[in-house]
């Protein structure tokens, strides 16, 4: 379980301080899927970096399973807002990076990496280098790199921002399927309310800078959900409208 207790984070520099997060309290249960929405610059990425142990809070405490997070943990995976691919590795090589670092069996994971790349629509680009890929393709490689690790905690920072609506929907649906079959505790930053409603058990709405938890909206829709026209559309639309209102 992830717990944020009164977490604040201020960035200090010569030009003055920026208070990115103020007094954020949040509990995320095991296997829960939490979406985080909020305006640009409100501290969403900062929040993920705090949970990932890449930044230390300037106030309050972040704990996972009761242990304070003081450094990155191997069971927590962060998908960064930028693709952050290694230019000297191919798409497949980039996806294999965590496998090599964690010393997992290469042959087995190689097949899995290839499957993941195919699943996100990168068939034929496994052996290409990042600079030969479009922005959205790079983001999908980064997504595969995060997913191959099967972590207990998955932190995703706008993972679909560079993708077209259709690919987004496909991948969100795949992500939902993955979460249903092998649920990881997930914190998912997104700018898309429909996406949040599709995927999340709870949606955390952050206020503008300094980011504070304005509201946590529970999404009580049965899974699997879909974007299309179905029985729950009305309920989903209501939920989306509420969120829109809040932002």
């Amino acid at each position, binding site marked *: 379980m992830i717990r944020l207790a009164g977490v604040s984070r201020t960035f200090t520099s010569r030009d003055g301080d920026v208070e990115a997060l103020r007094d954020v309290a949040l509990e995320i249960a095991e296997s829960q899927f939490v979406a985080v929405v909020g305006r640009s610059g409100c501290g969403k990425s900062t929040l993920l*970096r705090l949970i*990932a*142990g*890449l930044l230390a809070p300037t106030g309050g405490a972040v704990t996972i399973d009761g242990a304070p997070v003081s*450094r*990155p*943990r*191997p069971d*927590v*995976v*962060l998908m*960064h807002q*930028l693709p*952050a691919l*290694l*230019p*000297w590795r191919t798409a497949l090589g980039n996806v294999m*990076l*965590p496998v*090599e*670092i*964690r010393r997992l069996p290469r042959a087995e994971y190689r097949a899995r990496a290839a499957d993941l790349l195919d699943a996100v629509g990168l068939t034929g680009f496994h052996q290409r*280098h990042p*600079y030969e890929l479009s922005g959205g393709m790079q983001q999908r490689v980064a997504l595969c790199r995060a997913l191959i690790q099967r972590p207990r905690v998955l932190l995703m920072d706008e993972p679909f921002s560079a993708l077209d609506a259709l690919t987004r929907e496909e991948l969100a649906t795949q992500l939902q399927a993955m979460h249903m079959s092998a649920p990881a505790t997930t914190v998912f930053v997104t700018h898309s309310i429909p996406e949040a409603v599709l995927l999340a058990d709870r949606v955390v709405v952050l206020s503008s800078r300094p980011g504070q938890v304005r509201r946590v909206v529970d999404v009580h829709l049965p899974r699997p959900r879909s974007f299309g026209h179905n029985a729950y559309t009305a309920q989903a639309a209501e939920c989306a409208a509420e969120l829109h209102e809040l932002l």
Partner: protein
Amino acid sequence: MPPVLGVAGTVAVWWGGTRVFGIRPLFLPAPPDIVAAFRAQPGYLLREAGATLTVTVAGFALAVVAGLLVAVTLTAWRTMERAALPVLVGLNSVPKVAVSPLLVVWLGFGSRPKIVLVLLICVFPIVVATMAGLTSTPAELGELGRSLSATGWQTYVKLRLPWALPQVFTGLKVAVSLAVIGAVVAEISQPGDGLGAVIVLSGMSFDTPLAFAAIALLALLSTTLFYLVVALERLLVPWSRAISG
């Protein structure tokens, strides 16, 4: 084509200069004198060039290994850098001519003291450039490594060193030129063999064209080694040109 033109141009300027200003061969012999000096004993000159090449390459190879190790050590432990780098910079400024007799006293005659001198002269640029490269990993890649809980060793092998390679090669290019200079300095101070010995011995018998034939061979040697390093760079870091423009 341009390289040929460049060299031809240089030779022309030099030749013209010796003509127009009537520079005596003692100071700067004209190209034909040098060609004649080379053709008088090509076997000898090439043999000595071989000796210089051996010393250069051996010392350079050692310097690459030592330089990379030192750079990794200094960037991995900040305290280490603060303690050892000033010492390194200071030691590097000790004139090699002062060290050279000491090396003979410790290591005897032959190629060992020469190789050590080459190492001492050319290791510094490798250390400085590699350190610069290793500390220039983009923040997001550094964060990636940390978030993957990579060990220090893995961070270096998988992220920092590959990223640093283009800058390491800057160091290598400077170092390989210095290695040739180092070999010559060693050979001048201990003129058993090598092109440096040719330069100092022919200087003693006032045979300036022979000295300049040796210098021309040195220039050739140095240029060849430099472009070998450039070729290696193209081979090992093709991505670096792809991501810059």
